[in-house]
């Protein structure tokens, strides 16, 4: 379990403070963080992963402060996929996934049989087996994302933090991606996703949190959180609420009727 307590962080160039008094991420659930651009979602995820140290607050991984633990130990139970991953070199998919075993190796990172099994499993899960020898420069945006996801999965984390993992994907692959996340969460992994896609978040999440200007606006199940008033407060009035035909979960659509003229 990952717990964040009394987190505060300010950037000198922004006019808001990220302020989260309490947040816990549990195994076995999909937790989505949504909110407008620049609301502090990515910063919150960076802080939760321990990659970035907040000005104030504590982050506890299994009850121990994440900054007192070695990064290698942290990475064995906490995975983090940044929004953008730009590799300096043109590695193959398999090389990228093998690098995901870093936290479980030492020295020169020689992989043993157990590691190879995990690598194969992660290539399989993300459907990258056939592309294993492909170099990064020859992959589409979505394939690249899956390659890096496979690498993070190879860490075998209990909690996985993903920063806009589906932004580069088409609808088909977005849905596939979230189905994979659901499968992983059913196997016990705790998954936190920062996303702009409110509909996907609504469909696949167990819990949603809405962040605006660094503050928590609402948190709870999709139908509790995604109410017309919350969504309109955060994203503006031009939004139409609906419900998913199969699941009944809240959905949103842009509104056309009554479109306001821009008010100068």
């Amino acid at each position, binding site marked *: 379990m990952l717990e964040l307590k009394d987190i505060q962080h300010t950037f000198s160039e922004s006019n808001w403070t990220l302020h989260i008094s309490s947040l816990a991420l549990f195994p076995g659930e999909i937790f989505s963080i949504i909110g407008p651009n620049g609301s502090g979602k990515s910063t919150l995820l960076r802080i939760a992963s321990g990659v970035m140290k907040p000005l104030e607050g504590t982050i506890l991984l299994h009850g121990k402060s994440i900054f007192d633990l*070695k990064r*290698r130990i942290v*990475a064995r139970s906490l*995975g*983090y996929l*940044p929004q953008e991953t730009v*590799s300096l070199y043109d590695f193959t998919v398999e090389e990228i996934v093998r690098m995901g075993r870093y936290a479980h190796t030492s*020295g*020169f990172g020689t992989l043993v049989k157990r590691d190879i099994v995990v690598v194969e499993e992660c290539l399989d899960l993300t459907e990258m087996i056939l592309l294993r020898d492909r170099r990064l420069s020859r992959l589409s945006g979505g394939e690249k994302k899956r390659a890096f996801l496979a690498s*993070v999965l190879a860490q075998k984390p209990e909690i996985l933090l993903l920063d806009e993992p589906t932004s580069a994907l088409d609808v088909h692959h977005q849905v596939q991606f979230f189905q994979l996340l659901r499968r992983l969460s059913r196997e016990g992994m705790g998954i936190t996703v920062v996303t702009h896609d409110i509909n996907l978040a609504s469909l696949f999440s167990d819990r949603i949190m809405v962040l605006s200007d660094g503050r928590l606006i609402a948190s709870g199940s999709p139908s509790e959180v995604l109410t017309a008033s919350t969504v309109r407060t955060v994203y503006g009035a031009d939004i139409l609420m609906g419900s998913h035909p199969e699941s009944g979960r809240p959905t949103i659509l842009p509104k056309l009727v009554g479109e306001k003229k821009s008010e100068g």
Partner: protein
Amino acid sequence: MKGKIIVLYSLVFLSVAVLTPWFGAESLDPSDVWLYLRGEASADGDIFWLQRIPRVMLALLAGGTLALVGASFQVLFRNPLVEPYTLGMSGGAALGAFLAISLPALWIGWGPFSSIQVLALIGAAASLALIYSLSQRPQGMSVYTLLLAGVTISIICGGTILFLSYLASPHVLVLYHRWMMGGIDVVGYRDFLSLIPFLIPGLILLLYHTNALNQISLGEEMAAGQGVDVKGVQRHVFAGGGLATAAVVSFVGPIGFVGLIVPHAVRRLSGFDQRTVLPCSFLLGGTALALCDAIARTILSPTELPVGIITAVIGGPLFIYLLVTLRWR
């Protein structure tokens, strides 16, 4: 697979180590060279064992170090144009060397080290420390500041040297100019042995972090997420590589190009895994510098050229050839 590649590079390295001592202005009689070891003094034996061998050993070590540091710095700074000398150490060393040459009163030769070496080392170490302290941030070390501070310090040192050389006598300028060309024309094992204590800690530190550097090439955040203590590795690699570079530049002068080109050549030939790239860069860097020095010794025989000229003149076109012919695999 990786082991095999390293063995291959090692074989080339060893054969260059064994063969290049035989090239030079004087052709040597192998039997004299052999008998010298049994205690029979001869001119050929002197040349081989006291000039050629130490010189080749120094070339292998210095070239290897420069290439290894270059390879790791290119990853650390995420910049393919970085070489060990980008970071201001050579500027500091050059300023130190210039002072030693122009102010004989400043003679502070110490133990086995000449005044030029001591002052160059002080200059290089001073710029290393300055750059390091400038790059410290509350969140840790900023590699971009490090790079910019290094380049700026190089420029400041260069400007100071220009100013001083405007005032200096022509004789000093000639000596300084010669130092800038770089050279490994040593007699005896003194220089080689005095380099060792500076290089070993740095080289071990760099090789120890090869696997972490692999992760860092995926980006600092990705690497941190996968379990790398990014700031710690950056500190170690910078300090280790900086110390090794400072030592090399102080002893043999700024021999350019090896640290820039050899790592790229290795990546083109053998892939991107730093666990291969770093050791192979050392092996190929040493090989390249020893070969260039063999050419420097023989091409205008009996005159010897400074090796820095050869590395640039041969290394440049060779690299362009690699660039054009070998595609990224």
